[in-house]
């Protein structure tokens, strides 16, 4: 699992490559925490996340809580159909702003 951070017109785009499961989750969580700004706009790009387990979803839940505590506005993009269905059925999806692309996320968070 690799994390990358870029700036897109003032928005932090964090993308995650690889598998997000119980093996990688603790490290991803730490790295995300370090990459996360105290305020501003973040788009989490999951289009290169090959697999996400329930532990992975819990990482997202923690990210959501971190964003809530700080002044960060957060959007998710690149959800696979499977991940989207699981997040929907378990109610996690409702916590997030979900967008179809990084560009849409930048737009959604900056207007």
């Amino acid at each position, binding site marked *: 699992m690799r994390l990358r951070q870029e700036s897109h017109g003032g928005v932090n785009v964090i993308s995650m490559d690889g598998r997000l*499961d*119980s*093996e990688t989750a603790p490290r991803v969580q730490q790295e995300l925490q370090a990459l996360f700004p105290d305020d501003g706009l973040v788009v989490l790009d999951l289009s290169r996340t090959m697999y996400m*387990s*329930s*532990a992975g*979803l*819990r990482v997202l*839940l923690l990210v959501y*809580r971190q964003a809530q505590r700080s002044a960060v506005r957060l959007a998710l993009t690149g959800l696979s159909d499977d991940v989207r*269905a*699981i997040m*929907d*059925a*378990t*109610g*996690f999806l409702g*916590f997030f702003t979900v967008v179809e692309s990084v560009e849409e996320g930048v737009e959604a968070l900056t207007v």
Partner: protein
Amino acid sequence: MTILEPIDAYPTQRISGFPVRAGRSLPFGATVVPGGVNFSVYSNHATAVTLVLYREGEPEPMAELPFPESFRVGSVHAMTVFGLDVEGLEYGYRVDGPNLPWEGHRFDPSVVLSDPYARMLTGHGPYRNRSRVALDDFDWEDDRPPRLAHEDLVIYELHVRGFTRHPSSGVAAPGTYAGLVEKIPYLKELGVNCVELMPVFEFDETDNVFTGVNYWGYSPIGFFAPKASYAATGRSHMQVDEFKHLVKEMHRAGIEVLLDVVFNHTAEGDERGPTISFKGLDNATYYMLTPEGYYYNFSGTGNTLNCNHPVVRGFVLDCLRYWAAECHVDGFRFDLAAVLGRGPGGELLHNPPLLESLAYDPVLRDRKLIAEAWDAAGLYQVGSFPHYSRWSEWNGRYRDTVRRFVKGDLGVTGELATRMVGSPDMYSRRGTAATVNFVTSHDGFTLRDLVSYDHKHNEANGEGNRDGDDGNHSWNCGAEGDTDDPAVLATRARQQRNALLLLLASRGVPMLLAGDELGRTQRGNNNAYCHDNPLTWLDWGLLEENADLFRFTRRAVAFRRAHPVLRGGSPASVHWHGVRAWQPDWSAHSRVLAAMFDGGGGDCVYVAANAHWEPHALELPEAPRGQRWHLFADTGAAPPVDAFEPGEEPPLANQAQLVAGPRSVVILVTR
């Protein structure tokens, strides 16, 4: 500030390659603790216990960890194992001990047993009964139970899978908790405020010798585990979250969630049945046994859980507390609850400790407790169930009386009056919340079949039509089963409305069977426990086909909500009438009854029921307090004027007389 890690986050020794330490005896089950998982299991008669760990889906264990003697406190074996990836972990126990059935012991160390406290089972595939550890992190936000007054409930009994499994349901995930969430707007429209879910504890849906299918699920395997195959996310092992999401969304819509729970027996059956969990953990503790070591069978299914044994009682309490506190469930309906009042030898207990414990439990204080107050061995406690002023009961006598009256039987008019005011002959001191009234339930005919069949038609069950109840008090209205005779169909439609209207105008808690508001049929099958197919699934096409019936039911539910006088009050606030006002006819040949519910506060409802095939002109009592009678419903009228929107009832032209048509129920309200 540095937070010191707890000292027991470190292992003290290695067993089978895993770092471990002596665990905590409580809580039972597998609990995530700092650095590891604490496993705790009870067995009073075991000589050796081994924890068996698997990697997800692997046939062979990755390790077997015998509990050292020093890890046992009393009859509890506990061990903390460090460094486990709980997400990919499956586990079970091997338990050794005497195999002396005549002394009650059936230990078999060749079997890997389910943890009775497991929050999840694998739920599918060849290793479906393996236990799993749940990641306990669900965001309930500000969820709080609606905490509706018991007498204000309108219960809707449904099967999680059957409710949305039919292709016509149009949901994204048919047959699941998530699918049910999608139907919440429908439940809101109908107006019910409480769903009672048929069993959702893990059970084996293939466990049936006749059809190979157990659909209803009254045969539990994992009492703490929501059924994985009812979850769209079951294969990702997210069923606990999905179930919690269902409860949360129901609550958001103001709807309570009750679970139909089965603590009278398990799927392990009798001495011929499989060993899954209790049988191999401590048979003599968990089951009621004869002096010869055979299984008492008060449940009609092979075995009987020994639920008044102190350890088993603790198990039941732990289980219900879990569902209430961790899963926010609002209450429980106890299958064959009379069994829960029996002692270890099957004897009837005067003051059953389990029922008493549940009644006074601090965690369960605000949760509904509803007993099916009978068992399969002839014990019938409707009206005499040990209630501690706390328990409600499925009122089987209400069901039978309304069915018989609507059918036209003689000699039940007086009893109907008693049932309509909350059965004070049985529940006078407990109030109307004590009686759960119903005409149909999952067990027996659907409402449409009740008026379409004289006899049960269970041929497809493979039991030669010998299964299911013969005493249904049903009437086919002139033709058995399908017909295109318009007169028969009209009578059936009216009879369904009659039953629904009487149910929703009676004091006590009404319970509707899902689909009855749409004319659901099981083609005369009154025991469809073994069919997982369109026979039992709700066909949503009926919503269009029977739009009249749906509209009628919706209005009747709304009417009940608008009139508190129908939900409670003293029996003295109901005045009885007959063909003549103020003169009820209690004679055995009477088929006419009228009740005026008048609490004196301006809320007054008049209900007239005519089960005769002739019309009767009824003299109306004067509407109290200078008001006028308005017509809410008349089942003898053609839709859509068979019922009006509550609040928009037209005034009655003739305030002195009402003609109740053949086999009809009429409801008036004052304004």
